[in-house]
């Protein structure tokens, strides 16, 4: 192939070593085992197959990480992200997108096609929860495995950066503990299956009369119902005032946890255009209004004993659940990682992010400051912003980044070659106090 680049360095780097191909083969066989069980619709010898699939995938990730990062000195390497098929919307990217999308479609609407996987995960469910597996247990386990395995990859990639290390330990901890082990153990103890890190309105069911009734008779459930409301009305404004929305979106939330770990290889695919920003604002606040309206109508319906709204609010709930809860947050939100980037749901849909964003934009101390006049316009910050913020436009002007969407992942600051960006908190902007 003729080298058409004017640069001295080759524009087509060698992307994978022999060992990495072996690693991909190992992980590939592990994932293939799961796909076979999925297709077969029945699991033979679930325990050995499950352990083999998990073991091979973990080994593959580990060998890949060794070759990709540990062979080199610390320092963040994003080499070849625009050349690799998987991370540059190539054929592998599309293939992975289609498989994940297909999985989500089965998960939400045709769980009978997951019966093989459900059987495969049953022994683990019995062990943890003392009850049979269902599609949600399969999902939760795969989700947690993805956060942990890709979290390890992330930790090695960003090992030079204490902020990234701590943040990633945090999302791994909350996913494993609060979104996997604790709900499972609660089921074993005959308690409601509670995910303490998901509140209304992200978890839209949690604010409804159905949730309130469902928890009746359980002290823990009733506590969680009011805890969730308190987090929405009191916790969120206070925590966001001090830390920005990152206290939730990139340190605690499970959706954020998956985006930050499994989604990290795709973060550069987010759309940075002004048009995307406009669409983002319309969409996210629309979803927020919808979830509030839906919840209010459900409560009115209960208060009026169905005499006014009849079946309308229930129909509203079902539509929201189908369109937003399943199709948007799951199918598009995760299935389209390799095509639209890792934060599509967080950016365009999540009503919790909308609520956090309103507080971040209007009252929070949180901001990303720019170091004097030192931006060289390289664009790394914008490229690797998973929320599609054109960080460079702020950096060039020496302007604080105060944006409703910023989840405070800190990657812009980490990849800046001149150390120009810093996540911090104070009332008032540096640029206003000290014009350059």
């Amino acid at each position, binding site marked *: 192939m003729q080298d058409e680049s004017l640069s001295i360095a080759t524009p087509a780097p060698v992307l994978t070593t022999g060992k990495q191909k072996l690693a991909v083969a190992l992980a590939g066989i592990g994932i293939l085992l799961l796909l076979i069980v999925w297709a077969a619709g029945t699991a033979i010898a679930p325990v050995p197959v499950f352990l083999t699939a998990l073991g091979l995938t973990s080994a593959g990730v580990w060998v890949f990480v060794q070759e990709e990062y540990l062979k080199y000195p610390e320092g963040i390497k994003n080499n070849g992200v625009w050349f690799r098929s998987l991370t540059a919307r190539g054929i592998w990217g599309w293939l992975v997108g289609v498989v994940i999308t297909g999985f989500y479609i089965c998960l939400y609407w045709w769980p009978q096609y997951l019966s093989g996987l459900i059987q495969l995960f049953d022994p683990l469910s019995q062990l943890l929860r003392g009850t049979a597996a269902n599609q949600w247990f399969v999902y939760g386990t795969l989700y947690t495995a993805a956060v942990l395995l890709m979290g390890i990859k992330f930790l090695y990639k960003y090992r030079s950066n204490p*902020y990234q290390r701590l943040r990633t330990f945090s999302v791994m901890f909350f996913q494993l503990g609060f979104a996997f082990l604790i709900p499972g153990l609660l089921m074993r103890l005959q308690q409601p299956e509670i995910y303490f890190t998901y509140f209304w309105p992200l978890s839209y069911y949690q604010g409804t009369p159905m949730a309130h009734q469902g928890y009746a008779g359980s002290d823990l459930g009733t506590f969680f119902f009011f805890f969730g409301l308190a987090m929405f009305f009191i916790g969120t404004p206070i925590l966001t005032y001090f830390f920005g929305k990152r206290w939730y979106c990139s340190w605690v939330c499970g959706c954020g946890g998956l985006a930050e770990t499994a989604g990290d290889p795709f973060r550069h695919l987010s759309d940075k255009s002004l048009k995307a920003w406009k669409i983002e604002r319309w969409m996210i606040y629309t979803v927020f209004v919808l979830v509030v309206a839906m919840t209010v109508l459900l409560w009115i319906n209960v208060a009026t004993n169905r005499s006014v709204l009849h079946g309308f609010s229930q129909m509203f709930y079902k539509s929201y659940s189908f369109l937003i809860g399943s199709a948007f947050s799951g199918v598009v939100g995760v299935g389209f990682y390799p095509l639209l980037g890792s934060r599509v749901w967080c950016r365009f849909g999540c009503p919790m992010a909308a609520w956090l964003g309103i507080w971040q934009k209007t009252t929070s101390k949180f901001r990303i400051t720019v170091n004097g006049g030192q931006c060289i316009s390289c664009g790394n910050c914008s490229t690797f912003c998973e929320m599609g913020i054109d960080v460079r436009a702020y950096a060039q002007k020496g302007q604080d980044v105060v944006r409703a969407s910023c989840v405070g992942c800190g990657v812009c600051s980490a990849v800046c*070659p001149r150390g120009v960006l810093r996540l911090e908190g104070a009332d008032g902007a540096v640029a206003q106090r000290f014009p350059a």
Partner: protein
Amino acid sequence: MEHGIDLRLNTELKAILPDNQGKCRAVVTSSGETIECGFVGLTAGVRPNIAFLKNTALETNLGILVNEQLETNLPGVYAIGDCAELRNPPAGRKPIEAVWYTGRMMGETVANTICGKPTSYQPGIWFNSAKFLDIEYQVYGEVQARAPEHHSAVYWEHPDGKKSIRIVYNSQDGHVLGFNLMGVRYRHEVCDKWLRDKTPLETVLQNLGLANFDPEFYPQHEEELVAAYNQQTGKNLQLKQKRGLPAVLQFLR
């Protein structure tokens, strides 16, 4: 050999040896070492590449000569960036400064002028930054390779050899002259103010946290630098100010 680069410090190139076809076969260093090679890359600084302008009406020296408004001897013709040579550089500055930031500031200056707001080039206190082989580097003010008379320095280096802080000060009256940082980020506005105000070194050391621009949870090395100063001078200075934006805003106000 980290990053695949084998360095020879404090060593210069003495000769390039040819093979029988006149191509390079080895280099000899000032320490007498012969290193076999097939390729020599010489990167000893930059200079304006203006040979093609030599026989034009433009006045040139090492670079294209420009006045305070970056205008050449031809009215309405401006030169900026690596090729421009200031006839009267500001105090302490060189006539040619071929770095990104001066280029950008010159661009802003000329943009103002040609848009109808005649503006003189005022680069302020010297600064530069870069990142080489995963190590970030920043400089503010005067930090010269060969320290002139009355230039002294406090220096701290991390045991891993990848972080260092050097603060240069005037040994006669004690005010700070420059900051040089490897693997540590300092805040531009704070260092700039200290340098412009000719702040005494000890004031700077006591408030050094104001300058720290490293991300949250990064270790702060200011106390170690103060300790290095105490060891050097026998004094007992204490660090009063840690990293944090609210204090910085107070300071800059």
